[in-house]
Structures are given as C-alpha cells and as structure tokens.
C-alpha cells in the first residue's frame, strides 16, 4: 500500500528471528572466550579457600576466584580507581563482546544494555562498612554511586557510548538468563536494534556466603581438604553449590543489522520462556521447570527429540539437581547430551545464566561438549552425560536452563544458524 521503495531495508530489519552476534566471558578457569572454551573442554578447575578481602573474616569458604584482570587501555586509570570487581568484570566482558560484534560501527542511539543481577557488589560494600565504621564522615563519595546495581549501567554506557536504553533485571540465580531474555524482548519489540545482556559478577562478602550456607544452598566444608572435589553437580555426593566468580556478555540483534557490519551470528535465539512457581523460597519445582522448557520449545517451534544438547542449571544442590533431572526427563529430553558447566566454573549466581549461554554458544561453534567434573555416581545414570572427557558432537539445537530462588524458572533455545 505504501510501497516499499521508501525503506528498502524494513522487511529484513523487521524479521522476527534474533541472533547472538558477539560474546564475552570471564571465569576463574579462563578469561576471554578462547581460554574459557579451552578450560571447559579440558575440565579445568580453580577451586580453593577464597581469599579475597571481605570474603573471609574468620571463615574459609570454598570457591573459585578470578586471577588478576588485565584491563584494556581504553579504560582510564582515573575511572578504574573507583570501579570494583563487578564493574571491571562487566567492562571487560562487554569489551570482548563489543569488539567481536563490531559495535563501534553501530548507531549508539539504537543500542541497549541489560545488566542481570541484584545486590551485586556486596563485598565492596562490606569492605567500605568495615573501613569507615565510626568514621562515617570520610566515606568516599563514590559509595553514593556504587551501592546501586545500576552503577554498572552508567559505567558501561559511559565507556562504550551506549545511548539507547539501559537497566538492570533481577531473577536471583536466573538473573543472567533473564537478562538475555530481556535483551531479546527489547530487540523484538523494536525499542533497540541491538541489545547487550551482561550477567554481572556477583561479588559476595562473607555475609552473603554465610547466609547461603545457613540456608543450606551452599556446599559444606566436607571437601575442605580437597577443594577440587567439592563442586559436584548431579553426583550422589553433592551437598550444595560452590561459588565461582564469573561474568558474561552477549549481543542480541537481527541478522540484518549484523550483516550491515559484516558480522556473522553465533546462533539463533530460537525461543525462550520464564515460568514462576509462586514460591518465595529456594526450593525448586519440576512443574515450573517443565513449563519453562515446554514453552521455550513451543516458541522455538521445536520438539524435545530435536534438542541435541542441554546445558542445565545443575548447581550441586541437594534438592535442585534431582528436580531438574526429573523435569528434563519428563520433557523427553533424555536423548540429548548433557553436562554441567558449573562443575568447572562454580556457581556465578547472577552471572551464571549468561556465562552458560556463552558456554553453550562456544560448544556449538566448536562442535565439542565439555566434560562434567566429579560426576562419579550420577543421580540418573541413564542420561546422556558427558562425563570424563570432552566429546565431539554437532549441535543443531541446544537448550540452556536457569533456576532462581523465589520460584524463577527460565529456558532458552539456541539453534545453529544453518538450521
């Protein structure tokens, strides 16, 4: 009716298919995509007693901490002086994703940013509380900025010149995947042409660690003498998750905008879903996880037998792991290959969902699946586990799952671009 001569690019720009066109990742086993994938495939680990200031206070919690971050020169020293670990990790992963997706060539007014995570800089705050207790007058003014999670939005948008929109989203341990889902929604709705999701490094202090231990969610000291054995998702001898510092970033857009910059997508974001249990507590529900999986598959127009690989939430939780396996099996996904990224990285909490999307994308691209550490007696031995060694496998369609306290269940389907 209007003729299509006026905006020839509109049909492809309005194409509903969304793709991931760049990613960045940090974990204790590897910083950057290449090191991260190599560490995953080798089944590396970096668990030990955590030693970062603000994380011990007489405790000796096991976890995996990042080695020193090598910040690119684009970030000035003046800035970094007041940026904590979560902020630095966000800048670094965003930098990696930004370069890969060549976003310097994109319109900054059409780029959005979603940061997944809530209360992400608790360790930095605990340190400030200790230092300035009784000397409140000398609290650094930047505390007034950094206590807010949205500080990461300001920090990243300033440093990368993002001028579209930015906000945070929270979904407990599903936050990272909720951020990817929100980024997809923003591109699909047309509010942004390109949206970056960052799963923020959750910088826990001894307060949060103790709370998670008291709650029964975090693993015990049973493996204090052998930290490499402590993190054991889906194994009979698991007794809770083991924390691991991590951060991830992914770029979501349509194929047409990526093509304008000559960028090839990793994979299609074929479908996603979020389903609630209506439950404030940490206990999971197979019914809720099942609904998330089924809705994601339906929206991706896929059936369970088409899924080649499942990247589960799999934390090593006493209750969470068997419930998740029941949901996966109940959905008919028992043929799909399955491993547990957290057995290698530890649980990044808010970061986990994004980091595991990156892990899935990298495995799809390499046609390799990483092993699962410490899976000596699998809860469900009949599942198609990748156990001791990495395997070669073509992955046409993958499903990655996240679960968060407060009854949050999410599922995301990723499809190879050829399919």
């Amino acid at each position, binding site marked *: 009716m209007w003729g299509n001569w006026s905006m020839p690019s509109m049909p492809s720009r309005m194409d509903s298919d969304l793709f991931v066109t760049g990613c960045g990742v940090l974990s204790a086993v590897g910083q950057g995509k290449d090191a991260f994938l190599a560490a995953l495939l080798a089944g590396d680990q970096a668990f030990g007693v955590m030693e970062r200031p603000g994380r011990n206070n007489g405790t000796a919690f096991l976890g995996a901490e990042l080695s020193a971050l090598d910040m690119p020169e684009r970030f*000035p*020293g*003046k800035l970094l002086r*007041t940026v904590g670990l979560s902020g630095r990790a966000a800048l670094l992963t965003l930098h990696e994703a930004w370069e890969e997706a060549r976003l310097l060539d994109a319109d900054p007014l059409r780029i959005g940013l979603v940061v997944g995570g809530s209360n992400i800089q608790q360790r930095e705050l605990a340190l400030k509380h200790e230092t300035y207790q009784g000397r409140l*007058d000398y609290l650094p003014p930047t505390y007034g900025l950094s206590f807010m999670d949205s500080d990461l939005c300001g920090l990243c948008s300033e440093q990368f010149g993002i001028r579209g929109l930015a906000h945070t989203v929270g979904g407990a341990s599903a936050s990272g995947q909720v951020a990817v889902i929100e980024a997809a929604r923003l591109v699909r709705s047309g509010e942004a042409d390109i949206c970056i999701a960052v799963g923020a490094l959750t910088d826990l202090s001894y307060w949060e660690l103790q709370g998670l231990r008291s709650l029964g969610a975090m693993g015990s000291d049973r493996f204090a003498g052998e930290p490499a054995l402590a993190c054991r998702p889906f194994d009979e001898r698991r007794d809770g998750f083991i924390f691991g510092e991590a951060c991830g970033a992914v770029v979501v857009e349509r194929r047409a905008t990526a093509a304008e910059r000559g960028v090839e997508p990793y994979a299609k974001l074929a479908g996603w879903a979020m389903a609630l249990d209506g439950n404030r507590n940490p206990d999971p529900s197979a019914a809720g996880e099942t609904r998330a999986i089924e809705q994601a598959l339906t929206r991706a127009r896929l059936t369970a037998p088409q899924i080649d690989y499942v990247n589960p939430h799999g934390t090593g939780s006493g209750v969470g792991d068997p419930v998740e396996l029941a949901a996966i099996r109940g959905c008919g996904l028992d043929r799909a290959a399955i491993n547990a990224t957290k057995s290698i990285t530890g649980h990044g909490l808010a970061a986990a969902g994004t980091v595991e999307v990156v892990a899935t994308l990298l495995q799809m691209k390499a046609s390799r699946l990483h092993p699962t550490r410490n899976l000596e007696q699998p809860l469900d031995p009949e599942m198609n586990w990748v156990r001791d060694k990495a395997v070669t496998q073509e992955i046409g369609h993958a499903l990655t799952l996240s679960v968060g306290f407060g009854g949050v269940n999410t599922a995301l389907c990723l499809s190879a671009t050829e399919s």
Partner: protein
Amino acid sequence: MTAQRHAEIFALVQNNIYEVLPDVEGREIKPGDRLTDLGANSVDRAEIVMLAMEALSLHIQRVELSGVKNVGELVDALYAKSHGQ
C-alpha cells in the same frame, strides 16, 4: 611554622589530586589551577576533598567549600579549618 603547615597541606592536596587524577601525576600543581581544568568531574572533586579531610581529620560540610574556586583556595580553606578558624 604557619607557612610550613600551609605548604604541607598543599603537598597533601597535590598528592590527592594525583591519586584521583592519575593522568596529571608528576605535573606541578599551581595554586591558581582549577580542579575542573585538571580533568576532575564533580565526583572527582568530592573525592579529592574527602581524601584531604580524612588525612587532616577535619570535618567540613560540603557546602562550606562551595565557594572554593581553585586549588589554592581549597588549601586555604583546609588550612583555616585545621586551625579552628
């Protein structure tokens, strides 16, 4: 001794400026220099003042320094406060 104390506070402020603004480190700071011209934004200026206050154990309301125009005036104000004026 008074001039010496004033010079000490100036040196302290200069070091605080170097800490908050690493790009100007090593450059001679003059009393007439404005923090803004040295590259400080409003948060940087607040950080520099706070570091000086902490080192001198002073308690100064932000508003009391609102009329300060340059590094020399900041040092004068800190000096005056540290001598109970």
